[in-house]
């Protein structure tokens, strides 16, 4: 074994090992969406009947009567938390309490919470919400997942934090915790106040 062979071996092996080491630090299943930081995609979704709804937020139809849809446009100046969930989603069970507590705590600070049902039937969703002990915020229907795709969703639960200017500030993949929810909302509220 001479030193030149050793050197050649090291020169060949180091970049390969570095590449593999870099790969170890990556989650191959995580998808980094480029959306956060830009404008949140607009949406207009029907409310799931049986969930509490602020009638004032319903989009009025052409004849002036209140319809049954909610649009993002109507929420300028408010912070919106959009949570995609399904009754078949196990992690959503853990998260439901966090969202419900958050919705109560931030109700008077201009934060709106919405659930968006993902690939599930309204009946299942209603039964599930009842089983979870009910919720104080409305849930919306996204029957062909168009809004989910618009937001770059690839699984449930996923939550999107939209600032008062309509900017998608933060995307959370997986169940939210009290800590993350509080920290992100306080950041957004502090940012918009200054």
């Amino acid at each position: 074994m001479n030193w030149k062979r050793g050197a050649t071996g090291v020169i060949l092996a180091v970049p390969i090992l570095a590449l593999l080491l870099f790969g170890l630090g990556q989650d191959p299943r995580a998808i980094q969406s480029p959306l956060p930081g830009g404008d949140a995609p607009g949406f207009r979704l029907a409310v799931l009947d049986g969930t509490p709804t602020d009638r004032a937020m319903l989009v009025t139809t052409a004849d002036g009567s209140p319809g049954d849809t909610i649009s993002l446009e109507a929420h300028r100046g408010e912070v919106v938390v959009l949570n995609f969930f399904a009754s078949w989603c196990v992690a959503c069970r853990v998260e439901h309490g966090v969202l419900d507590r958050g919705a109560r705590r931030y109700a008077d600070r201009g934060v709106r919470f919405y659930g968006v049902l993902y690939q599930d039937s309204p009946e299942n969703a209603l039964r599930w919400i009842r089983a979870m002990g009910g919720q104080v915020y409305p849930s919306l229907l996204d029957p062909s997942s168009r809004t989910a795709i618009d937001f770059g969703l690839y699984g449930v639960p996923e939550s999107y934090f939209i600032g008062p200017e309509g900017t998608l500030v933060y995307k959370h993949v997986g169940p939210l915790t009290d800590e993350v929810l509080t920290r992100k909302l306080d950041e957004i509220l502090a940012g918009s106040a200054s």
Partner: protein
Amino acid sequence: MTAAAFATLALLAGSDPGSAAPQVAEPPAAAVQATQQPERGAPPTGESLEAQTRELASKLRCVVCQGLSIEDSPSELAREMKGVIREQLAAGRTPEEVTEYFVARYGEFVLLAPEPRGFNLVVYLAPVLALLGGAGFLALRIRSWVARPEDGVTDLSVDDDDAFLDREAYFDDGALFDDDVPEGVASARHETTDRRDG
């Protein structure tokens, strides 16, 4: 050898992959106009719409199963995504614009063939590099293997076992570096070279 290899690589990098995949990242405005103009006229319908949808769907990665294209994936979300492709094409969007729609939401991850630029170039260049490196290494080894039998015939009759083993060890070690040849072996090698040449 290495200079030639790098020149070849540079050529490959410059010419080959750029044309292979659609250019999503900010193509010059003029080029966009030129390529999109003919398709702006009439959105595809019927069979041609289905064919275009299938073609595009097979280039995009399903974000649920991740190893499959949207076309091949049985997942619900992939089906809906294929629906989005069909809708957008039918509305007169070009395949490039539809691709851009998905890249803007899911990142380059959705492209089954990554864009050949930046760090992605590793994927395109590493195999070429490994192939050229391997070929170069083999060429060097074969040259030393070819040189051996001739030496072997004369060496076998040499009484000096140590000298023989030295040479054997030297060639086994791979005659990659000329200046690594031990003293005695060096002279022996020069002898054979002279014999062959003369």
